[in-house]
């Protein structure tokens, strides 16, 4: 087989002209939708079925969670700014915003660590009651997603110092961005369904 044939081989099997990483990410996000859908569904199924406290109204803190939700939303905003900067080859800006995303993500995680430890102090653990089990599973899974996102953003930031990056690399940042925004919209749903509705 000639060199040229090898290089062209993958092309023959393509059925779309869409970039693979991006397509893969969207398919992954679709599956992650179902993952979170099930976790949120489980939370609702067991809502108000805890036999002992602490109950959601006792522990959930709306003002603090509003702030952390806002922080996560703004990290999404920084994400689009980072992508825009990279596409326009504005590398210093790109680095600044990428750092910003990782930073805001970490702040969000900080809030979550604070929240979890407060809950545990108030007696709510994973094993305490159905609320504890379903709440920690759901928000913990989300937190792990955010953690992965933060690490991902940091690795992109580090990469930008290791090798020169330009608008040609925008696709990879875009894919990371899709993941980041997804984690953000999951939180939008969690914030409403688990936190706000509890206090209606």
């Amino acid at each position, binding site marked *: 087989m000639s060199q040229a044939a090898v290089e062209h081989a993958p092309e023959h099997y393509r059925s779309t002209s869409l970039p693979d990483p991006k397509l893969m990410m969207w398919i992954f996000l679709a599956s992650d939708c*179902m993952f979170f859908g099930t976790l949120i569904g489980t939370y609702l199924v067991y809502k108000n079925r805890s036999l002992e406290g602490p109950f959601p109204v006792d522990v959930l803190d709306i*003002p603090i969670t*509003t702030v952390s939700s806002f922080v996560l*939303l703004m990290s999404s905003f920084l994400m689009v700014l980072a992508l825009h900067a990279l596409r326009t080859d504005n590398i210093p800006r790109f680095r600044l915003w990428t750092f910003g995303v990782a930073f805001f993500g970490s702040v969000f995680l900080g809030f979550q660590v604070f929240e979890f430890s407060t809950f545990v102090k108030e007696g709510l653990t994973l094993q305490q009651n159905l609320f504890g089990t379903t709440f920690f599973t759901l928000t913990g899974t989300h937190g792990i997603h955010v953690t992965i996102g933060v690490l991902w953003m940091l690795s992109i930031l580090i990469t930008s110092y290791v090798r020169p990056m330009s608008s040609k690399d925008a696709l990879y940042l875009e894919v990371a961005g899709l993941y980041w925004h997804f984690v953000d919209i999951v939180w939008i749903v969690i914030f*409403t369904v688990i936190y706000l509705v509890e206090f209606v």
Partner: protein
Amino acid sequence: MSHDHKGSSVGAYTFIALVLGVITYIEFAIIQYEVAWLNAAWTIITLVVLSVGKFILVVAFFMHLKDDEQTYTGFFSIGMVFALGTFIVLAFLFSIRSVSSVWARSERTPVEVQASSEHPEEAKPHHELHGIPEHLQASIESEGYSRPLAEIFDTARPKNQALSIAVPVARTTQSFTVSEAPPLFALAGQDGVPVEETPAIEVSAQTETAQGFDTELGGQVYSGNCAGCHQVNGQGIPGAFPPLAQNLPILYQADGGREYLVNVLLYGLQGPIEALGQSYNGIMPAWAQLGDDEIAAVLNHVLTSWDNVTLLDEFAPILVEEVATARSTNLSSAQVLELRNALDLP
């Protein structure tokens, strides 16, 4: 489409971020400063609309689905549809009671359900059961009933436990008769007993022979809360969850059994027991969060389902008031176990 995304400009991004922030603040404010003119249902609807709005803004503009390839939107939609589907199915599988009772409350009109017997000729001598005095039919209903959407998400919330006495207007009044011997008994519309086909003996709910209790509610409470352990067929799981079929008539007919059953539901049960020759040592949760009417209804449901009623010589439905009375005694599950041990069981 080419990959040289114009994207939205920084200005547009900033605007959207601003809108997202403002929406989040509005959501917060609605909850924090309790907007008086928004009732619970509308508050939930508003919150849902607002967060769906945020969701769409992020997906359309930050994730660029608005101007990106349709294929991506397609994949993502499939995921969303599956997620929502799972969600709805879960809601219906597990909270069917709360969902359907909300609908039922708005639609239900007094229905005269006919009692029937598989052997109408045997049913002639009506066995007179103690009618329920009308003044006793007042039941305790929580104010939650006027807040349908809230109830879908939320069946028993400590916050809302303000109780008011209301006379039920639109409750299904079920009337039936029991034939003398053998006590064949079937409720129209229940398991395999068609409503129309059986030559029914109609008894008005107002007559002395009538027994009023809400079989529909009872069935809903049972499938929503009990069937998971005691199984749909009431057989339980040997060694883990005691059967309610065949077992309950024995308990009911023992001296003090009637009170025991109400207390088991209100306060739970924990400790070694024996039912139909099999030992159990599990935990029956307390169901104090159910309304008095729901507890009465589910007890009447289990006492009359799965041929249980044929094992009863006489049956007077458990009244809402009995549950209300038992509620004030505040027993522990250990005391309930003592009650059971004190029963004179064969």
